[in-house]
């Protein structure tokens, strides 16, 4: 292999090995190289405590058990570790056991599942809701359940893999429009005029933290008679006056045809859900494989999620705390002249540039200083904009944020400014 460090996971998808149970020969050569192994030290590091902002990790960097400020968790509102949520989960566990022990259609639907689905539909101002055991399964399952061969799925180019995989599984023709570019979207809709078309966008884009231009997207969908699917994985419970998400934020919830959300991010549990009109949900239950061929979500988790929804929506305390913290972090980072891309949310990238080596070196140093902030490398993001990605959280204290900002300034800002 010419220069081993020029390669990435993007280069080994196709496998020519005559032994179907073995990866490509050059993949083995690549992944065993000491410099590549160094990058992989950051993956699958073991947390030894709950996903609070103050946590402990068994470091992949040096093998030490270390106290860290965790700025990478999706526990945006702290609901995963909220005492009332934990108690509700324990109560459900005592009453229902660990597993639903069946697919939803046969024996896996409990009264708890019906209750959560009903509450989520009401919360999202939609007629009905279908629950999935994972967020990825929800997006994939919705695409696969709604679309057929010959249909068109028009996606923002920064859409999550689960939407793309769902489109592939459905056999739909996929067209990607330039990120948040309405002219590009219109060109795609012009091409697909008269066909069955679903436009899929995300409320908050997960690697950049910017928002969908929902009013414009919605107007184009109306003009071209396309369905509108909004993935609110990173916006539900956080955006909008009542936390209902990006549709509420822009005041056009009634324009959203299908609203998808995860239960693993702000909700603090695991799973996914799709809200829409009752007829479509009924139809999905017939054809969406991750729903009808998978065990239903754990009743213990569902018990906790019902409480999480209640805690997050009974008042705005957690949301207000989250946004106060996000403002504080963002202002602190901007004062260091760091490139935060176009963030408008709790997802705050710190864009480092094209050097994977610099990214990994900084990642190692900040972790040894006590900050858990994961590097995001190509191909997850473009090669010229490798980055760190901060997840703001309502759990953060001012002391934790000050400490984290100090580490970022000492390690990342100093390095980037000295090299520029």
């Amino acid at each position, binding site marked *: *292999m*010419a*220069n081993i460090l*020029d*390669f*990435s996971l*993007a*280069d080994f*998808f*196709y496998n*020519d090995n005559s032994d179907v149970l073995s990866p490509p020969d*050059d993949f083995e050569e690549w992944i065993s190289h000491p410099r590549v192994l160094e990058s992989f030290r950051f993956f699958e590091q073991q947390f030894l405590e709950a996903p609070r902002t103050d946590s402990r990790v068994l470091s992949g960097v040096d093998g030490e058990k270390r106290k860290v400020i965790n700025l990478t968790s999706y526990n945006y509102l702290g609901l995963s570790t909220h005492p009332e949520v934990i108690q509700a989960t324990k109560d459900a566990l005592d009453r229902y056991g660990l597993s639903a022990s069946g697919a939803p259609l046969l024996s896996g639907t409990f009264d708890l599942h019906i209750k959560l689905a009903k509450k989520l539909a009401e919360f999202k101002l939609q007629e009905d809701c279908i629950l999935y055991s994972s967020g990825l399964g929800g997006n994939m399952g919705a695409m696969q359940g709604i679309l057929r061969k010959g249909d068109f799925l028009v996606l923002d*180019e920064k859409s999550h893999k689960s939407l*793309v995989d769902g489109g*592939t599984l459905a056999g739909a*023709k*996929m*067209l*990607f429009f330039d990120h948040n570019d309405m002219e590009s979207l219109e060109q795609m809709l012009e091409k697909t005029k008269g066909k069955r078309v679903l436009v899929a966008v995300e409320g908050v884009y997960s690697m950049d933290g910017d928002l969908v231009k929902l009013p414009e997207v919605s107007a184009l969908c109306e003009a071209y008679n396309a369905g509108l699917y909004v993935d609110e994985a990173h916006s539900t419970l956080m955006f909008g006056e009542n936390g209902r998400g990006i549709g509420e934020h822009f005041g056009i919830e009634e324009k959203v045809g299908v609203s998808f959300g995860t239960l693993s991010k702000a909700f603090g549990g695991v799973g996914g859900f799709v809200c829409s009109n009752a007829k479509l949900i009924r139809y999905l239950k017939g054809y969406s494989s991750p729903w009808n061929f998978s065990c239903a979500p754990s009743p213990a988790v569902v018990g906790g999620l019902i409480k999480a929804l209640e805690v997050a929506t009974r008042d705005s305390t957690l949301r207000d705390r989250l946004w106060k913290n996000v403002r504080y972090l963002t202002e602190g980072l901007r004062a260091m002249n760091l490139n935060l891309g176009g963030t408008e949310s709790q997802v705050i990238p710190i864009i480092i540039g094209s050097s994977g080596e610099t990214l990994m070196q900084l990642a190692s140093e900040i972790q040894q200083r006590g900050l858990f902030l994961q590097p995001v490398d*190509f*191909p997850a993001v*473009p*090669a*010229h904009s490798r980055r760190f990605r901060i997840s703001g959280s309502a759990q953060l204290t001012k002391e934790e944020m000050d400490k984290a900002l100090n580490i970022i300034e000492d390690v990342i800002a100093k390095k980037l400014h000295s090299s520029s």
Partner: protein
Amino acid sequence: MTKDQIIDVIKQNIVDNLDDVEYDQIDPQKTMKDYGANSLDMIEVVSCSMRELNIKIPRTELADIKNIDELADKFKEYADGN
């Protein structure tokens, strides 16, 4: 291998992977996007062509390529190096 032969390989893979594209209508000065390819289709065409040409180029080196002709130049650079 000549550049024309490399362009032939790429064109054949475009025909095999995209709907409604005829071999003779493909202009190397255009992009695969012009023929209706999305990013997944492009990866498919590039990967199949590289396998056929027995070369391997990191994806990061392909990011700035503007059209089929430039892709052929990059492929030739690696094919000549083999």
